[in-house]
């Protein structure tokens, strides 16, 4: 169970093991690079071997070394991501433990102050009772002459004790309020530590996803499949010429969403670093460098931090809306394209055309849009990972370029898939439309037909 107090929990994870794994991955990267060089050298170690086979052999060695080198590069990227993750997690755990210690201290002071307030109230009540008793005795004796001196003295002591109790109670109340404020600050610091841990985990996940996506295939085969690559360039030309296609929309909205998300993450990370430093009373800068946050905000306040978190949330929300709108438009434009293709055909009835538009348009638009989004996501993450060598600006530029390239490749792949498989929704869509118009009995047929289609594409 992770250490926890007052709603503050130390983020889970073994920072030391992550750093050890980073070192191991770095070593692996070095070994893979050496293996790649050894493969590069193989063709030169066969004496004067001349002939078609020697040329093929040399080419194959170079392809393999390219794959191994890509693995070395991925391992290097993974090592960097693990190192940053380990360091960030260690900071977050340290801050959370510090916050827990502060919260425990504050809670102890709260309990002590509450006890002191109760004690002061009890003393004040006892003093008031003694004061009252002494006052009664004085009142009774005043009828017959001089009040007894001991009663007068007791009344004076009781009033003095009451005043002292009131003073102590007021002091304890102040201490209680201060301790409660300290507890609230400790909880806020704990919350920031948790958010920081989540941010570094997300960054590590994105870096590993980027290093996994496309890399192994490229490594094993010496480059991405040529069909996808060519399709990507074709999609780029199409997207640039006609942005309102599923591919174009995926390209644009995917890039916009990715960049907004990355900007939000950057903002969070920068403020979290600043927030952590602020809480520990230091003034060090992010990665030892002055950032745009320190330039424009100066010393970070709680209010500035809260504002930054809200801005980051809004950026992500806008990104999600842009993506949704892009998807909707992609489906609509996909349907419009199909209608444009079918409108002049005499061999199709109106019902056929409606069914085809509904099925193929939506299908093609959605598939190419989805492919674009996946590609843009992977591309942006990969680009951001490359660009992160230069903080913020490099990340943003890398993400933008990566998103565009990834979107192009992804949308090209999506369109390729949609084109190759559009026969299924075409048949199902046209048939479904006719059946819906014709009769209820025919509906049974289409269910069977759809079942056969599904059976035919089920690989299991």
């Amino acid at each position, binding site marked *: 169970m992770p250490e926890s107090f007052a709603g503050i929990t130390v*983020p*889970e*994870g*073994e*920072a030391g*093991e*992550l750093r*050890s*794994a*980073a070192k*191991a*991955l770095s070593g*692996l990267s070095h*070994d*893979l690079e050496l*293996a790649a060089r*050894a*493969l590069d050298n*193989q063709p030169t*170690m*066969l*004496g*004067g*071997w*001349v*002939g*078609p*086979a*020697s040329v093929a*052999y040399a080419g*194959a*060695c170079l392809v*393999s070394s390219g*794959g*191994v080198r890509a*693995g070395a590069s*991925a*391992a290097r990227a*993974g090592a960097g991501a*693990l190192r940053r*993750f380990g360091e960030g*997690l260690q900071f977050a755990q340290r801050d959370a433990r510090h916050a827990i210690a502060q919260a425990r201290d504050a809670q102890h002071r709260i309990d002590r102050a509450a006890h002191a307030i109760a004690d002061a109230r009890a003393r004040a009540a006892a003093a008031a009772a003694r004061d009252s008793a002494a006052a009664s005795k004085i009142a009774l004796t005043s009828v017959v002459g001089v009040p007894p001196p001991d009663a007068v003295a007791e009344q004076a002591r009781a009033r003095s004790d009451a005043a002292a109790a009131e003073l102590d109670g007021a002091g304890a109340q102040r201490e209680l309020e201060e301790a409660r404020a300290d507890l609230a600050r400790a909880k806020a610091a704990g919350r920031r530590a948790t958010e920081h*841990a*989540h941010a*570094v*985990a*997300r960054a*590590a*996940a*994105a870096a*590993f*996803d980027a*290093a*996994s996506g496309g*890399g*192994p*295939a490229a*490594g*094993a085969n010496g480059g991405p499949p040529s069909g996808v690559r060519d399709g990507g360039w074709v999609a780029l030309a199409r997207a640039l010429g006609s942005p309102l296609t599923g591919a174009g929309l995926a390209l644009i909205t995917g890039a916009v969403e990715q960049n907004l998300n990355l900007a939000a993450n950057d903002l969070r990370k920068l403020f979290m670093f600043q927030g952590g430093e602020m809480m520990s009373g230091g003034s060090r800068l992010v990665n030892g460098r002055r950032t745009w946050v320190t330039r424009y905000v100066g010393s970070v306040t709680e209010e500035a931090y809260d504002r930054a978190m809200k801005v980051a949330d809004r950026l992500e929300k806008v990104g999600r809306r842009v993506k949704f709108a892009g998807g909707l438009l992609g489906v609509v434009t996909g349907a419009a394209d199909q209608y444009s293709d079918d409108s002049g055909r005499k061999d199709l009835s109106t019902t056929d055309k409606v069914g085809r538009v509904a099925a193929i348009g939506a299908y093609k638009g959605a598939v190419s849009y989805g492919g674009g989004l996946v590609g843009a996501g992977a591309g942006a993450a990969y680009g951001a990972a490359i660009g992160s060598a230069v903080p913020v600006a490099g990340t943003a530029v890398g993400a933008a370029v990566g998103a565009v390239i990834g979107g192009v490749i992804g949308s090209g792949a999506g369109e390729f898939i949609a084109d190759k498989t559009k026969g299924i929704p075409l048949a199902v869509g046209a048939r479904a439309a006719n059946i819906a118009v014709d009769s209820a009995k025919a509906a049974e047929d289409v269910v069977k037909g759809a079942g056969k289609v599904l059976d035919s594409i089920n690989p299991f």
Partner: protein
Amino acid sequence: MPRIEVQPDLLSAGDARQSALAAHLAELSTQLRSTTADAAGAAGDGGAGSSIAFFGHAWSSALDVLADTVAMRGSNLGVAAGAYLATDQAVVRRPGP
């Protein structure tokens, strides 16, 4: 027909080197899988563990494929060396006209 020159013994040596490289790649693949599995276990609950594990699986699989490819290429080299020798010896043994 293009010109062919060959030193079969060097091809045989190349076979051994490729086999050794393939074994080394397979070993590195195992190390990668093990390292990333450890890192995934140490990642905590932030969601990075699955990405790290997938990375390790994807790349170690790719390296396994590369190791197999390199091993097969080495084997082909050995077979080629044998074939060159056999062809040459067959010509020497062939009776003259």
